[in-house]
């Protein structure tokens, strides 16, 4: 298991001397041919945020764990998510009406605390709480990091029996925070037709990019 260390071999000094020169020259040459070849290869960076072919949000896979959003019309206030969260960044409060229905008081998610682990979204049985592909979350003060999902008083807690379809992911956050992550974008420089390769995914400038100025 523990090998014996062989003694180091002392090479002939003259051969070593010229061997060093030879190897130094040849390995430098090899390295330079590699770096030279990169001058002819396509750079792999994208020019985030303003010169991408499409918004980075749309390049992300569906599974991406971005900012959390909750569709309150599907939320039964079972508090599973709040209990699962290791950090306690979800705070839910409901109050009871005299007529028996429950009403949301607060449904806040503190993005400053959230570590985007996805445990809460997994715990949600009704596909109400989910990650979006939104990731540009910078705001100008710590208070704004908390997203308050209860948009109007008197929003009733959903019943598990008849849930409306899930609203598209990201739409709730977008409605809640106008201009959130929707910065002005410049169109990507058009791909020159010189390359015979299949063109990149069509519709590079979608409706997301209304003021696409070159």
């Amino acid at each position, binding site marked *: 298991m523990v*090998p014996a*260390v062989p003694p*180091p071999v002392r090479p002939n000094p003259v051969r070593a001397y010229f061997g060093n020169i030879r190897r130094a020259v040849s390995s430098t040459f090899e*390295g330079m041919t590699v770096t030279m070849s990169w001058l002819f290869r396509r750079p792999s960076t994208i020019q985030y945020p303003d010169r991408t072919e499409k918004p980075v949000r749309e390049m992300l896979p569906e*599974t*991406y*764990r971005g900012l959390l959003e909750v569709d309150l019309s599907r939320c039964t206030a079972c508090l599973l998510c709040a209990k699962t969260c*290791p950090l306690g960044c979800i705070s839910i409060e409901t109050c009871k009406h005299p007529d028996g229905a429950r009403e949301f008081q607060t449904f806040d998610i503190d993005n400053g605390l959230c570590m985007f*682990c*996805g445990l809460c979204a997994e715990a949600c049985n009704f596909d109400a709480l989910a990650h979006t592909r939104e990731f540009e979350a910078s705001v100008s003060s710590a208070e704004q990091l908390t997203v308050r999902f209860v948009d109007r008083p008197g929003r009733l807690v959903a019943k598990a029996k008849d849930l409306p379809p899930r609203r598209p992911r990201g739409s709730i956050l977008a409605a809640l925070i106008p201009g959130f992550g929707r910065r002005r974008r410049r169109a990507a420089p058009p791909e020159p037709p010189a390359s015979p390769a299949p063109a990149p995914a069509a519709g590079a400038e979608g409706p997301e990019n209304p003021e696409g100025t070159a």
Partner: protein
Amino acid sequence: MTPAEIRERVSAACPGAVEEFQADLLDPVLRLRPDRLREVCRFLRDDPGLRLHYLRLVTGIDRPAAADSETPGGIDVVYHLWSYELRHGCQLRVRLDRANPVVETVSDLWPDANWYERECFDLLGVTFAGHPGLTRLLMPADWVGHPLRKDYARPERYHGLPTSRATVLAEGRAAEVAPAMHDTKAQPIEGYLRLNMGPHHPATHGVINFLLETDGEILKKATPDVGYLHRGIEKLAEQVGYVGTMPYTDRVDYLGAMFTNHGWALAVEKLLGVEVPRRAEFCRVIASELNRIASHLISTGSLAMDLGAFTPFLHWIRERETINDIMERICGARLTYNYLRFGGVSRDIDPETLDKIKHWIDHFEPMMDEFDRLISSNEIFVRRLAGVAVISPADAIAYGLVGPNLRASGVAWDTRRDEPYSIYPEFAFDVVTGRAVHGTLGDAYDRYDCRLREIKESLKILRQAMAAIPEGEARVKVPRPKPAANEVYARVEGPRGECGFYVVSDGTEKPYRARFRTGSFTAMTIIEHLSPGLMLADLVALIGSLDVIAPEIDR
């Protein structure tokens, strides 16, 4: 040799030293009398039939007396020992008086115990008599209290800095505080230049401080000082429970989060006795091996960057980006994966992702040859690493080096093959060891070379796993974990070596004690030993070749 047999031998050689043999635990423990610990340890290490040369872990566990219990409280110190040659191990435990916990040091028997004992002193207040420099390791020198004690209360402020988020938010912004600086107590060596390398130094791979004593370019000594990234994840695990700890394990090793995930899942699954579906095991292996490649890419690339070659690093970063994109598809995040669950994985891998992995491997394999031409065979690069900071096999074991660092010294030990877990026995791959291509066995180049060759082995495993992945469920539903009182040590082979989780459960939803054994922690201890006589630039190569990353040390 089983733990019971080891116990027999110990009892025969040191009569009266073993107080109790806890055979009912998943990992049986020998409870020793504290005053006989050194004697037993020396026997275990030196006995030709035992040869436990590797001290895996030293853990302190605070066990205050329960209010309704008759048994007196105490502090346990648990030692995990292992023998690479004889492939057996045992756990030792001493129960110390809680008011005055003192035990003799074993740092002269196993050098890596030095830091473990300092950590234990720091976080639990256990005094190790005879320790050469028993000072706080992770917490600041003027910190009050020992955080891993069960009755520890966090102070409201430290040097005027609020310690909780609530206070910070309430006050609007943190008060103006003069930054706390590092004050060293060690006497300067006369005639040597003394300077700080780190925490803000490009080559320290995170925030680590080295106090250098140099004679011009040549080092007299480099003393590492860690704790800048200490987040108390072991303490957090006691508070957030088994499920909630999973995302925290991502933060232990941010380059190999899949392995810390895996280790944690293995430990808890062992405690619970959960079977993992086959497809989930394949998902785990595929994700793990991708992650291993990504981690090795960063490691080898940043070593090249530390030696002044910036380009290889960016090429590897580019390849790693593709892995990150794939990871994003697999588990939704690029760095903090939080992919594994008790009883499976959070999401199945879809066929399209498998296709992407295959294309990437096809592209990446020739890229490795290109990388060899660009940097690995470069004469300057070779000369910078060959023969530098040689670690002998015996030293590597004694200092508790693991993973590629250990294998580079010639010790062919891979947890995947030698202590199999998951479905690794089904795959054909080689355990790479150092081959002294350019210098001495166990030098910095060997460590680098081992990592590169390990990438190739990982590619082999990936190809096999993708060809053989079965249909089926990727997750079984496991109720909220609440394991009975027990102890387990589970380990996986991470990119920085053995990534072990020692979990003590007490029948609640939260672990009683969770202990993370990471490769970087022990790798750090050897730097001080190797540094005399190195040049300043060699130290950079040494740190880079050991592939230490700060959060793994500090946790």
